[in-house]
């Protein structure tokens, strides 16, 4: 087993040996239910789709994903175990990848456990299941993007609360970067191509585009390069800050 796999297994196992996994999954599922059925008014819409389920996910992830990612590196630095980890014969990228993949797999498990909602919509109507599947894929990619931000931020501090708050703020900016709220800030003094770039960096825009049920290469490229860039920054952050 490679070092990445060993770290992956340890991290994933860690979620389940501590109450983190159970607390997270229960709250994630409960909030998904609340947003889909009550806040989103799923019954009232009388449509056999999961639009309201997916609509609230960017917001839900905004707070839940940083809660999951905040400990990834901050805890290692706080407890000093980072010295143990980084003096084992592994490279930094293997540690970063192992931790990220474990957290991402864990969110995948939590996301899959929302299947009763999918069963409900299939029981009550005839939804377009391929659209729902692409929605799930989009949701999973969005979770990965938030996690990559959170993991990187977590490497900059040994304080998990700070890691959480900063990650929420950065995710919030990328969530809303396609909206007038953020774009108006830059409209006055940035040229249009840059404005378009900022707008194109919006996680929500790409997620919404996938909710239409089409896997567009541009969306995939966006999510994977977004994750890649943040993990690269994560590796650099670990190298820089590991011994502080």
């Amino acid at each position, binding site marked *: 087993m490679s070092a990445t796999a060993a770290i992956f297994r340890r991290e994933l196992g860690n979620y389940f040996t*501590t109450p983190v996994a159970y607390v997270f999954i229960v709250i994630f599922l409960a909030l998904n239910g609340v947003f889909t059925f009550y806040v989103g008014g799923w019954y009232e819409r009388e449509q056999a789709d999961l639009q309201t389920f997916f609509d609230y996910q960017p917001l839900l992830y905004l707070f839940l994903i940083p809660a999951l990612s905040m400990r990834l590196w901050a805890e290692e630095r706080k407890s000093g175990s980072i010295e143990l980890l980084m003096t084992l*014969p592994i490279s930094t990228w293997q540690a970063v990848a192992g931790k990220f993949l474990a957290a991402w797999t864990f969110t995948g498990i939590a996301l899959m456990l929302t299947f009763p909602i999918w069963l409900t919509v299939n029981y009550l109507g005839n939804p377009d299941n391929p659209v729902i599947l692409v929605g799930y894929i989009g949701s999973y990619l969005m979770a990965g993007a938030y996690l990559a931000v959170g993991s990187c931020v977590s490497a900059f501090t040994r304080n998990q609360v700070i890691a959480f708050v900063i990650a929420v703020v950065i995710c919030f900016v990328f969530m809303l970067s396609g909206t007038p709220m953020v774009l108006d800030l830059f409209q006055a003094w940035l040229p249009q191509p840059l404005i378009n770039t900022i707008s194109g960096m919006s996680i929500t825009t790409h997620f919404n585009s996938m909710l239409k049920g089409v896997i567009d290469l541009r969306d995939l490229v966006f999510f994977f390069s977004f994750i890649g860039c943040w993990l690269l920054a994560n590796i650099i952050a670990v190298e820089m800050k590991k011994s502080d």
Partner: protein
Amino acid sequence: MMESAIVVESLRKEFGAFTAVDGVSFDVNRGEVLGFLGPNGAGKSTTMKMITGFLASSGGQIRVDGLDVGKYPTQVKQRIGYLPEGAPAYGEMTVTGFLGFIADIRGFRGTEKQDRIHSSIRKANLGSVIHKPIDTLSKGFKRRVGLAQAILHDPPILIMDEPTDGLDPNQKHEVRELISEMARDKAILISTHILEEVNAICDRAVIIAQGRLVFNGTPQALEAMSRQHNAVTITFAGGLPDIAEQRLSALDNVAGVNREQALNRLIVMPGGGVSIVGQVTRLVRDEGWEIEEVYVATGQLDEVFRRITSHGGSVDEGDLS
């Protein structure tokens, strides 16, 4: 000739304007336990972190088994077993879970993995706690978990940062026994600020103060640097003879005679650290003084340690071994 297991040459480390390690050079041979001493904050841990590849150096060279740490970090880390200061571990894991993780990372599988885990559990005497989360263990057990982790892959080089710090005397003894057992075929570097440890397990000692090397030699050589070295303490039976102090002072090679608090005891200090016990006992016999006890001091490590680490001046003894 094969190079020493660890070679440190003109090693430097700067944190901003602060120089933590300032041109330190030493080496550790196979089959040798090197004690790394110095006051807190002298740069011991920083040096160890650079040897293990956790910190990048600001200058100088480190070679482990002939491999440059900066160029071959992974190969170097494979050869080293490292117990960081405070023995950090993943507290929520059980002892076997944690050692299993270390074995996975070190690339052991199947029966070899199980054998390695069991053997290091046995060596570190962890049998009674293998299924307990590390967080719930006592300090002594946590330290032994750190040791077990460090020796799991039977590394040719062991680096331990204060392995006995905070342990009770029994636990200290156990850890020292373990280190001595492993000493035969490994190069071992341990840092400590407990001086008795140097005599107990080290073949050689290196002392640094304020980032500089101030001593490199055997524990015996370190003791010899003590002003007390070879001093003779005489306890007289009954009262102190009137002329004793005067007659002892007159001997060759005697630098001075001190009177102890106890009225019937004199300490005869040698000049230049030479042995004077022969002369002193001859004088005692010739004079017919009744004595209770004669004691030759081997030297006070504490005193030497304080002297050579406090004013930052290097003691130019070279390699006394």
